[in-house]
């Protein structure tokens, strides 16, 4: 018998799947449901590890045929160059179609205002919503996981959004068994989260098992950084450092990849996947707690942003 399934130790039956195989199978099932039920699905792809894993799963779900979805990147204009480069290579390698919604372009034509703190993550909502309307996407895959944050713990796998992309926690449909209900009115769309049940560690273990290539900033490297709100931020044109902030060279890596203005690096000497995984497993901080300024705004910050149409 030739199979690639993990061998599980313990007292379970020979039919028990490892947790990674079970999560992979579930995610593939979700991708295929959307392919079977929607007209114009799109995958939100930032070049971050969760969207990279999503793309990998989509490739497996439809092999040997091509992925029947296009990709959408909401570019804040403050992305890490290594990540954009990775994004473009991935798109070219798999012959995919990429749509880019640019925050910078909105700022340039006065449709959005730069925030005083320079953070652009909250500014992504309008370009995302308008891109969904313009391309008439009816299903939008996001890499969100329920373990990331308390408001996300209640998110459905299929999450209904109205024509303004708003999320109403009281309007979400109960989700039973593996029966996903994707029906929606014209103009509405469904956000779909194939990684709902994955944890940060699952994502990393899967990357390791599948030998998935990642942008280099996920591994330890020397970088000019300065400290703000207890995080190491990268110096750059986005608005740092201020006169009062000292830059220094440190050995760091990123646990999450987002806008440069609100994504912090952590001190690390982990240069390999094994080392990264060991570090995460031993870490006493959640990935967002350690590295994301935008979630710290208030106890209900994420809930408020989701209502407005954020990922």
């Amino acid at each position: 018998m030739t199979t690639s399934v993990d061998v599980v130790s313990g007292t379970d039956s020979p039919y028990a799947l490892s947790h990674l195989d079970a999560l992979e199978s579930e995610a593939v099932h979700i991708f295929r449901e959307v392919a079977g039920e929607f007209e114009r699905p799109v995958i939100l792809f930032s070049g971050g590890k969760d969207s990279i894993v999503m793309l990998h799963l989509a490739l497996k779900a439809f092999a040997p045929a091509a992925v029947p979805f296009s990709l959408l990147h909401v570019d804040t204009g403050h992305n890490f160059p290594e990540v954009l480069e990775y994004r473009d290579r991935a798109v070219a390698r798999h012959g995919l179609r990429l749509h880019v919604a640019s925050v910078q372009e909105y700022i340039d034509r006065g449709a959005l205002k730069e925030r005083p703190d320079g953070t652009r993550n909250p500014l992504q909502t309008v370009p995302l919503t308008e891109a969904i309307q313009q391309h008439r996407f009816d299903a939008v895959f996001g890499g969100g996981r329920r373990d990331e944050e308390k408001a996300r713990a209640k998110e459905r796998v299929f999450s209904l959004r109205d024509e303004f992309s708003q999320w109403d926690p009281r309007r979400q449909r109960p989700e039973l068994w593996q029966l996903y209900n994707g029906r929606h009115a014209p103009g509405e769309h469904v956000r779909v989260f194939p990684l709902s049940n994955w944890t940060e560690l699952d994502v990393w273990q899967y990357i390791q098992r599948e030998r998935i290539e990642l942008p280099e900033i996920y591994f330890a490297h020397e970088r000019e950084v300065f400290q703000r709100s207890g995080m190491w931020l990268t110096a750059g044109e986005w608005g740092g450092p201020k006169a009062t902030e000292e830059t220094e060279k440190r050995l760091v890596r990123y646990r999450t990849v987002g806008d440069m203005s609100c994504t912090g690096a952590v001190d690390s000497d982990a240069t390999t996947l094994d080392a990264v995984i060991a570090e995460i497993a031993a870490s006493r901080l959640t990935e967002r707690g350690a590295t994301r300024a935008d979630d710290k705004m208030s106890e209900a910050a994420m809930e408020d942003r989701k209502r407005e149409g954020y990922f």
Partner: protein
Amino acid sequence: MTSTTEQLAAQLSATTLLRFATAGSVDDGKSTLVGRLLHDSKSVLADQLEAVEAASRGRGQETPDLALLTDGLRAEREQGITIDVAYRYFATPRRRFILADTPGHVQYTRNMVTGASTAELTVVLVDARNGVVEQTRRHAAIAALLRVPHVVLAVNKMDLVDYAEPVFAAIAEEFTAYATELGVPEVTAIPISALAGDNVVEPSARMDWYGGPTVLEHLETVPASHDLTGCHARFPVQYVIRPQTAEHPDYRGYAGQIAAGTFRVGEPVTVLPSGRTSTVAGIDLLGEPVDVAWTPQSVTLLLADDIDVSRGDIVVPSGDAPATTQDVEATVCHVADEPLTVGQRVLLKHTTRTVKAIVKAIPSRLTLDDLSQHPEPGRLVANDIGRVTVRTAEPLALDSYADSRRTGSFLLIDPADGTTLAAGMAGDSFAAVAEAPAADDEGWDF
């Protein structure tokens, strides 16, 4: 406890995944139990704990309120109740867990049904001072109705009854008798104090009369999957893969997740509802050819003959096909705010097939507290559980829910706006006949 390095190594090896659900009310200390499980299994990280401590201090509480770890939405924090299913994730060296944390308040039956629908195990919580109450019976009934394979009775607040064994034994006996009557195959009763931490993760020094596992030990060792050799194999087709490339000019694969049982290369199969037959020529396990595959693997089946197969069809072993029907008799839990009425036109979603349907009859409504039946209610409102007869526009290859949770379950959907109206389970409600006070002679045989 092992050393950190050993723990890490174990955590990083392949383990199984157990999905379980909790049922119980705020007053029973459910959030505290969940918080305790997360906290004592070292699954709460420093920043989460800091946030809880800060929020507790802000409310004038002296010790961190572990319940705050799990109450996510602002409305809940304000009201101090849990209003929706929340999913929690934690891991031990032995296993990974997905917990569907469901509110126990009476009006949230639908949330309990939702949480139980994907659970292999349910933890029912009771307050040792109150014993088995109406709500406990409701939780047992939902676990029985949803055919959750394992039920744990956690008798909480043992610290408030002086850790007295007779108190625990009486509650355990009463609950086990009731659940067994409903056909629950296995009940494990555990005396705990979530607040003090007895028997949740660490064994209790104050209850040496109890020789069984702690809640966590039981969760780590209960079978997470079952021997599938006796199951009816079922494969709902999700999507047809046809690359039509130079490399794969004739590839035609049927993509789906095996809903039950096992499939082997060479096996004769029948496609329902058409009844056409073929043989499994190959199985692709996400890009890798295999000889055998089983539930819940997502695979692509290749058939020997070029027959018409599309999304919504079900592939089954030729000797083991379910009957197809257009008359569905089932138990439903009504989950929408608008009522379900006789004569209503709906959509019925079964596996990957969605068909038009009409509600022909609602023979009875069930009261979960005492399992009494109310004949001909005419309608079901939110959180009602009742029997329905539904006529579908096309035949369905429907199993009895007792035989297969994935191919015996369905949704009723409002064709106008897509709202999920009801969660349905085909066939009889309960595995065993309960002594229900029949409201009249026409009552259904539950």
